[in-house]
């Protein structure tokens, strides 16, 4: 079997996988569709211990109403409780609690209540692999410039389509930054995680934890990994925290830096589109 046949087989296999995935989604039997999504409420926030680990997120006690029994269930974020860790918590905050249907003990947390999902992630990824296979097939059969066109073209179009949305999101973010309230905060702990990779290299992750009280009296505890100089020695330091009243999880210690970061992201987005267009054009010229 040569490259052509192998690539056709690759596309066929992933095409079938995608079709099966979309079929399962239509039938309502994907894992995401069999997940029960609930809204939980943080009842208690346990302050992280200075020098401890960031793993598992901020320790919280969460209660939610079980839709089957109607009873109030109290759980904590102990052990493996989802890919996202709770990095910002206050009593009364609503967070997402989800579990597979019929297995409430396998609950997971997310920072915000989750919308129902149709579970199209994996089928879409399979479609992406078919697309990659087709581009490589075109490059093998008709010459390598097709690889430039195949990869540069669609991504440039996608980037251009998403550009207006990105601009609007950036403008909204800048407006929110300008309207932020300010409060005095304190670094209540600095968490330290030391890991050693297979080559014996040691890496240390420093995570300062900041605590502040909003104008409404909400005591917020949050991991603060950006815009804090010398984080390793920040324990006990007083800081000024800027936060959005509607959602204190959106906070920063340096509004100007956030502003610059938004600008950089937009520049990067535009630059990426230019590079992709140039790639596609170069491919077309070389044909």
């Amino acid at each position, binding site marked *: 079997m040569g490259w052509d046949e192998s690539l056709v087989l690759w596309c066929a296999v992933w095409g079938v996988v995608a079709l099966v995935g979309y079929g399962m989604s239509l039938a309502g039997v994907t894992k995401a569709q069999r997940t029960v999504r609930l809204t939980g409420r943080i009842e208690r926030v346990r302050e992280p211990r200075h*020098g*401890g680990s960031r793993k598992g997120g901020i320790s919280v006690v969460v209660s939610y109403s079980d839709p089957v029994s109607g009873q109030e269930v109290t759980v904590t974020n102990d052990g493996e409780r989802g890919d996202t860790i709770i990095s910002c918590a206050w009593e009364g905050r609503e967070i997402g609690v989800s579990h597979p249907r019929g297995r409430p003990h396998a609950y997971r947390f997310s920072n915000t209540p989750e919308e129902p999902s149709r579970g199209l992630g994996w089928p879409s990824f399979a479609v992406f692999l078919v697309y990659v296979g087709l581009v490589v097939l075109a490059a093998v059969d008709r010459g390598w410039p097709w690889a430039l066109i195949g990869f540069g073209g669609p991504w440039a179009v996608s980037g251009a389509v998403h550009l207006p949305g990105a601009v609007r999101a950036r403008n909204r973010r800048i407006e929110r930054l300008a309207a932020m309230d300010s409060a005095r905060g304190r670094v209540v702990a600095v968490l330290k995680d*030391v890991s050693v990779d297979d080559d014996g290299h040691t890496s240390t992750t420093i995570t300062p934890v900041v605590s502040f009280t909003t104008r409404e009296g909400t005591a917020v505890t949050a991991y603060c990994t950006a815009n804090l100089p010398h984080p390793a020695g920040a324990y006990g330091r007083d800081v000024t925290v800027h936060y959005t009243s509607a959602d204190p999880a959106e906070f920063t210690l340096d509004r100007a830096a956030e502003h610059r970061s938004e600008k950089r992201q937009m520049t990067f987005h535009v630059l990426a589109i230019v590079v992709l267009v140039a790639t596609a054009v170069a491919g077309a010229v070389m044909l």
Partner: protein
Amino acid sequence: MTCTIGHMTMTAGAPPTHNRPVGLALGFLTGGVIGASLTAFIGGCVVERAPLILTGLVLPAVYGLLFFLATLPRRAREAAVVPRTALAVIESLEAIGGETSDVPVRFDLSVVPDEAPAFRVEIQQDVNLVELPDYRPRGVLVVEYPPDRPWKARIVKRPTPQWEERAAVAQVDSVPGPAMKSETSEGCFGALLTLLGLVLGAAAVLLLFRADLFDSHEADSGIPKPSVSSSSSTTTVTSATGTVTLGPGQSMLDKGELRKAVESLTRDADRRQALTVVVQDHLLTVVFSPTGVKSAAFDPRSLPYDRVPGLVEEARTALGVGSPRSWQLTVDGVTGSLTLRVVVTGGEGTGTLEADERGKVLRRSGN
């Protein structure tokens, strides 16, 4: 308030060990798949053979998929078990090394569930250095375990307020040993078996694909000798031409035979260019391009040899030459582009089929 928790002792012993042979077999198989796929992939890249490279990529994927499907029922069964929460007392603990901020600690615990017999269990769990002083012998803590596999117990570091209060005031009695513990790794024997599987997997690929791997290697590295004879074919190479004559019972249309023959004639380090390649059923002749002559010359290794049997078959059947007696493939680049010309002679005349350098049929002429 202080309460004392007594116990009925669980009679269950150590975890079942029937999985041990299965685990060893799985280790052997995994080693074999790793060895085979790595050998196939690296070997395929070196000799530039797509089937080998694909074998190296597809084999672990298929194995992983089969493994996933085979273990799916067991994992679903285990996931459906509702874990039980209980109080436990630390009989002893020992930090067993580690250079990270989370150190592995071996705990010997007496677990006293509310509605089940008490039991003794030995577990290993990572504990953060800062939290390590919180754990001391006779300390009471909260654990969670699947009722059908109590040796899989783990310490709940963040219990609910209700369990936190219970652990704070309770006194838990010790449970007599011995402690059950999770099945240990297969040890040195298991590692050796995996290594054996790895070596055998690599050997199996070398054996199965020996023709592709070693013939190509010889073709790439050897210095051409004027004449090489073997029981199956005769190869003659001069400065101007090279011929390969196959022995009886063989054909240039046999799988891989033509490519092998061409490579046996072109194993010079400088990859000699050809002016004409002529192939008959038992005979291959390559007319080499004189040194310095570039026009009309081509790399004889670049031809679509996989397509040749198909082209000959098409010429034999589609050109209406009757019962075909002989065929000949001629490849040259005198017209500027490389052309493959198949001439078949049959009882009712002669037919010609022309194809381009990729083996795509350009024209057919015949009776």
